[in-house]
């Protein structure tokens, strides 16, 4: 009873705000999003917001969306999530790892509201689900392309923080580059930030100066691509999180520094979950989907990539999408030479989610 009035008030408020003529439905489902960065970051938050907009597009008036950007992790996020629950949100997506405890705390107080936490692992209440994407599948594809494209046999990876998510990406990228080109050598630099364009550019520059000619980044901005672009076609990079299509073609029509990209596409997940909520089939889950489900997408490859490499990459994509190939399929040894995966064995999700080791062939240590 009370919840109904709440919903009505909230809906009225939102309608006013959006200047919509009138409410089309009595009781639209309200999906709310908490973003860690500004929508305009061009990467992580931007893609989540694209997913939210796709959700709105899909269901039209049956769904309302609301969001808040640049919400600091910690105390502020708990308040923001609570306010969302109070404002009548039916389902709240919290899109950063640091929202894990706050999400669970608020979920305890609002058993009727569904909570979806991205990239975390805690589901302390029945109304909390977690979701993540298998970005390492995308890293496998760009790793293969990097192995084929490098002339200097040195490829680079700009890491944000040494967490399992990033280490998984590094391993996948290197493993597939190595399969494509046994001579390949990997250079890793840690930026210790998710977003600092100038520093990301510096990191790319440092690697370029040392002869690295293909770089992928695990940070959010397009700065590394711009820096790579200064090499005038002798070095290449990949779009990260979003397509970064602005760097696909140079102004003179030659292929730009961004030869492909790994796109986080959250829209299938958002559409699916809100759809389930509306038709009553919603259940608590721990989702870790990837290329087969369309949550990780490889953006258009540009013409810098030779046709045969394109074809190989397409084949790799197809084999991952159909599920016949797992990027971590043995034989793979750990960095110290000890066996990790035997011939034909695939990695367990648990190992991947807690990954704290490099695979054989990568030099250097994971900083602690």
């Amino acid at each position, binding site marked *: 009873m009370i919840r109904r009035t*709440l919903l009505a*008030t*909230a809906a009225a*408020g*939102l309608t*006013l*705000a*959006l200047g919509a003529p009138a409410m089309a439905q009595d009781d639209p489902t309200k999906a*709310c999003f908490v973003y860690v960065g*500004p929508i305009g970051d061009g990467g992580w938050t931007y893609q989540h917001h694209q997913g939210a907009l796709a959700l709105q597009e899909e269901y039209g008036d049956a769904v309302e969306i*609301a*969001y*808040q*950007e*640049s919400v*600091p*992790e*910690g*105390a*502020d996020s*708990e*308040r*923001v999530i*609570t*306010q*969302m629950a*109070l*404002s*009548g949100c039916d389902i709240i997506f919290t899109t950063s*790892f*640091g929202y894990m*405890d*706050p999400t669970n705390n608020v979920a305890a107080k609002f058993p009727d509201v569904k909570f979806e936490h991205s990239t975390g*692992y805690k589901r302390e209440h029945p109304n909390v689900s977690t979701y993540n994407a298998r970005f390492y599948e995308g890293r496998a594809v760009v790793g293969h392309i990097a192995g084929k494209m490098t002339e200097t046999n040195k490829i680079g990876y700009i890491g944000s*923080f*040494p*967490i*399992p998510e990033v*280490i998984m990406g590094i391993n996948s990228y290197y493993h597939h580059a190595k399969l494509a080109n046994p001579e390949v050598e990997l250079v890793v630099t840690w930026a*210790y930030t998710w977003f600092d364009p100038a520093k990301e550019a510096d990191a790319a520059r440092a690697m370029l100066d040392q002869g690295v000619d293909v770089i992928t980044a695990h940070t959010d901005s397009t700065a590394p691509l711009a820096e790579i672009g200064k090499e005038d076609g002798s070095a290449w990079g990949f779009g990260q999180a979003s397509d970064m299509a602005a760097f696909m073609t140079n102004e003179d029509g030659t292929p730009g520094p961004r030869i492909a990209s790994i796109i986080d596409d959250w829209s299938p997940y958002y559409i699916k979950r809100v759809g389930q909520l509306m038709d009553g089939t919603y259940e608590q889950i721990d989702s870790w989907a990837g290329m087969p489900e369309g949550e990780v997408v490889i953006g258009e490859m540009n013409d810098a990539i030779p046709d045969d490499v394109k074809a190989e990459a397409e084949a790799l994509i197809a084999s991952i999408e159909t599920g016949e190939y797992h990027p971590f399929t043995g034989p793979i040894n750990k960095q110290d030479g000890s066996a990790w995966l035997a011939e034909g064995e695939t990695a367990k999700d648990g190992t991947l*989610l*807690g*990954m*704290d080791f490099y695979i054989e062939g990568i030099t250097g240590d994971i900083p*602690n």
Partner: protein
Amino acid sequence: MIRLEKRPQPSKTWTVATPILAVVLTMIFGGIMFGLIGTSPVEAIRTIFWDPLFHPQFANFSRPQLLVKAGPLILIAIGLSIGFRAGIWNIGAEGQYIMGAIVGAAAGLALYPMESALILPLMIVAGALGGWAWAMIPGLLKVKFGTNEILVSLMLVYVAENILASVSSGVLRNPEGMGFPGSRNLAQWSSSQNLDLIPGTGMHLGVLSAFIAVILAYVLLTRHIQGFNIRLSGQAPRAAKFAGVAPARIILFCLGMAGALAGMAGLFEVTGPAGQVSIDFGSGYGFTAIIVAFLGRLHPVGILLAGLLMALTYIGGELAQLMLGVPGASIQLFQGMLLFFLLGVDVLTNYRVRFGAGEVA
């Protein structure tokens, strides 16, 4: 020709009237800004200033949240204001806040998973000591070498931020945290959690401490000889020296206290609302508290009100984003305006505006 003439005493009327004038000016100019970005100004202003307090849906939650948000701001600002009155410009409270949280959390986590009612008090002491020690660096350097405390304390903020990043992915990292940076959740460990004293009121130990600090600061400044010494040192350093006030002791007292209060604020935050030491723990409270101290005219009661007003704009701003879809940046701009107007009109409290040519050539 417009001139400013210093009043012998700050005007009582204007002390009350300037904040109101500033808020009105902010509403007008902020309203214009909201209008420009396509949001109804009336609606935006109402959401920011009125809804957190009186909206039927949110007020029950957001009123206590005002305390939670204002608590650390007030606690830090009180410490800072005492130093500011003595002419000691500690602008590194953010670093002291971070170090308090790190040291306090480390003291507690060293005993994990022991259960004892003494752990939280121990952590509070450790937190205060951590902040105190961090503030002692500029303090001792100033006393010993006359080094500028503004700059040293500011530099130490960056050092503290680097230490924070390193411990949250290093020694304090949660061993069960799947390798992610960040400590164990202190708000979920019964020995260290800092919960609402009365559930649902937002009154956790930190907020309580903030209120106590307001009262003690008031007593100190108005009734205690040290308070007199502090004010004297700020207004007439030479007279203070003749009166036998040792500048070194004032400097160490003021910086130490500001550091300890900031450290405690950090500890209360990390054991309560924030819950864990993480890379993003430093949320800028230390800098915002400087603003709060000046908005409160360096007066304990003023700081209390300023802290609450600042908290109101934060929470109201969040509601405006959620309900009206205004961008977060507009709230930042709005807060900047409020601050500028408050600082700008303060001149009327201490100065009389005179028109016409000055009588003294």
